[in-house]
């Protein structure tokens, strides 16, 4: 496989499209020109930097550098997971639940894929481990934060219903079941949609990239299948861990609703 390299001039054309979109937003006073340009700028800077950094890391082939980079990625994702919540949990719990979901869902899934399907030598080979952790992390963060946001925004609104059940002798798990179901369902919706639509409505990103870069379509499809299967598992795990951890924090051992855990 010989990857097709893109020149900066090729990218400039795509960049002009974004600038044109921003201009259109300005003309129609839709107010999205700033976020469009700022986030496009961020995207370029971030990805170019990542490309440069990965080049150095792959060249170094050091276990410690690889693990260090993965640790930084995990930490950033943990912080990001609860960053845009409608309500926050008091103290370190908000960050704690983010960290727990990110680690609990990402690490097992990434290890299984590295040790069974990809089997690079060594197993922590940076070229495999870092992109794999990265893509799993993104899905876990999405699933986990959607689930967490659902719980945090519903719990205060559904207080009367939850407390009515508790008062009638329901356990906290029973009283929270509708919210938990809703949260996990919301959390897995993106990956479920992605799997259902893959190949029919959209050609998934990885496969598109590999085919454009010259890989055989069926080989690219196999990679995409592997990734979507493990991503759906990771997204589900992230949503489940975040939901149950939030339930645990929003109730206590006497099965009381503790809205005082919210800021």
């Amino acid at each position, binding site marked *: 496989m010989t990857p097709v390299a893109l020149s900066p001039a090729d990218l400039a054309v795509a960049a002009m499209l974004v600038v044109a979109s921003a201009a259109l937003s300005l003309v129609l006073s839709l107010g999205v020109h700033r976020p469009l340009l700022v986030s496009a700028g961020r995207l370029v800077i971030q990805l170019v930097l990542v490309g440069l950094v990965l080049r150095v890391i792959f060249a170094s082939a050091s276990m410690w550098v690889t693990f260090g980079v993965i640790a930084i990625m995990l930490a950033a994702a943990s912080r990001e997971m609860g960053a845009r919540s409608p309500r926050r949990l008091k103290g370190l719990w908000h960050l704690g639940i983010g960290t727990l979901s990110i680690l609990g869902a990402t690490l097992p899934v990434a290890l299984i894929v590295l040790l069974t399907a990809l089997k690079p030598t060594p197993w922590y080979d940076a070229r495999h481990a870092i992109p794999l952790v990265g893509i799993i992390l993104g899905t876990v963060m999405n699933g986990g934060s959607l689930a967490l946001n659902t719980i945090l925004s519903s719990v205060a609104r*559904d*207080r*009367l*219903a*939850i*407390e*009515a*059940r*508790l*008062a*009638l*002798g*329901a*356990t906290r798990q029973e*009283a929270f079941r*509708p919210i938990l179901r809703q949260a996990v369902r919301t959390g897995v919706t993106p990956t479920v949609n992605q799997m259902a639509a893959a190949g029919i409505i959209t050609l998934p990103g990885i496969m598109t990239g590999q085919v454009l870069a010259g890989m055989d379509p069926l080989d690219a499809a196999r990679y995409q299948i592997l990734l979507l299967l493990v991503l759906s598992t990771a997204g589900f795990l992230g949503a489940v861990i975040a939901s149950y951890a939030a339930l645990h924090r929003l109730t*206590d051992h*006497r*099965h*009381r*609703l*503790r809205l005082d855990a919210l800021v």
Partner: protein
Amino acid sequence: MPRQEGLIVQNMGSAVRGPFSVSFDLGSCAVLQGPSGVGKSLFLRMIADLDPNTGTVTLDGTDRTAMPAPMWRRLVTYVAAESGWWAETVAEHMRDVAAARALMPDLGLDPDLLDAPVARLSTGERQRSALVRAVVGRPRFLLLDEPTSALDAASRDRVETMLGGLKSTGLGFVIVSHDSKQAERLGDRHFVMAQDNLTEILS
């Protein structure tokens, strides 16, 4: 040690209210009155262990901490002034649908309401259904927070009659009411609550 019958509250308090010590009898109705915001609802919620609190509460000599909180709340059930609903139809909220069907006419509720979506019920129908929901769980004690606040006089009388019937079967009641006449009609004992004490009014 003799078995202590009834609901015994000892030194029960939260960070901002109490401590309260009082005992309530089974087959009897205690009415609790006092100015708004003084903590009458909180008092009932603490007995049901729905809000964090200290002190001991026992029912017929058994401490609530000796059992899981959900089991305690099945015995000592709190009914909030504003009812909450979690499922589509009324029937889905009833632990015993047959018992609910039998009880509803006593409160002037059409049993067909069981199959209706909760959203279609009037405020008064919801308040009475919430009472039915608690009664069919077969508690020993009911803690009722303004149980007739949304009812017209006829429905209120039906509720009071039903409560009287349940009392004669041995159920105990603690009722918070703003209505002094209702307090006179229902109450075997009368209490007035202030910030950090509960005074029994002896007639």
